[in-house]
């Protein structure tokens, strides 16, 4: 692919990433406003979350980011076997993340903490807002993880079919998408799990 076309493709991806920054940025703003108004409720609600599970998932996503960076590195060097291996490892990390997340959500559901649950509705207003934001933001993030799994699976298949030349922009952009998923979590983690 010509150099110019490649950088255009990359620019497009970065523009998309900036729209994602706006999407989550708006939600962060909403969070901080409600937190400002209901500081004590947010503090109490945050105690419900498992700091251990959150930390584990952070490490899992950081590691997945390393793996996809290595996959892109090896694809550039045309070492397709190694690139494929690192995509597989990234996918493994992605599924681990979702499993931990599913376990966490399941536990909340059992405690009557899900949007619209009678128990949650009986809590103070700030706590309802906290859990609303928690499910909205981690849910939206999990959706990104699932889409990322889809994109990376396609990349793996295309790689096996030998469709990519040296340093494919499709491959690189998929890597960028996965790093974005990691960055969003880097901010979600302190906001929901650590600030209490």
């Amino acid at each position, binding site marked *: 692919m010509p150099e110019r076309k490649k*950088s255009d493709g990359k620019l497009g991806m*970065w523009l998309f990433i900036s729209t994602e920054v706006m999407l989550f940025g708006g939600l962060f*703003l909403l969070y901080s406003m409600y937190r400002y108004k209901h500081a004590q409720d947010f503090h109490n609600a945050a105690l419900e979350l498992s700091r251990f599970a959150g930390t584990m998932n952070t490490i899992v996503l*950081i590691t997945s980011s*390393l793996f996809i960076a290595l996959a892109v590195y090896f694809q550039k060097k045309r070492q397709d076997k190694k690139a494929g291996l690192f995509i597989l490892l990234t996918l493994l990390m992605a599924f681990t993340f979702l499993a931990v997340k599913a376990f966490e959500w399941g536990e909340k559901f059992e405690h009557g903490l899900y949007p619209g649950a009678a128990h949650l509705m009986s809590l103070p207003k700030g706590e309802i807002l906290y859990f609303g934001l928690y499910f909205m933001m981690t849910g939206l993030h999990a959706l990104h993880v699932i889409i990322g799994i889809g994109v990376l699976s396609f990349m793996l298949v295309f790689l096996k079919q030998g469709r990519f030349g040296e340093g494919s922009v499709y491959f690189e952009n998929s890597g960028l998408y996965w*790093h974005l998923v990691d*960055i969003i979590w880097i*901010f979600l983690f302190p906001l929901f799990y650590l600030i209490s």
Partner: protein
Amino acid sequence: MEDKKVREAGIKTYITIWAALVLFTALTVTTAGLNLGKTGIIIVLSIAAVKSALVLLFFMHLLFEKVTLIKLVIPLALIVLAIFIGLTYTDVAVR
């Protein structure tokens, strides 16, 4: 475009950045455990900013990017976001 091979991230760079990210995670969890109140919030969010900067610059190659326009996209998005957040806060503060 002349000196193409001058700076490229290698395997060692990636592993170093990964180790730094894990270290910062440990640091942020420890800080949160100390219950420092408002200072704690600032420290924890600053660490998150540093971590995402590491991912952007090294894992996402912004540090090695040669096209200026691509380098500018994220700073511009962050400036716009800062304006949104800043204006919203002034609105809330003086209401």
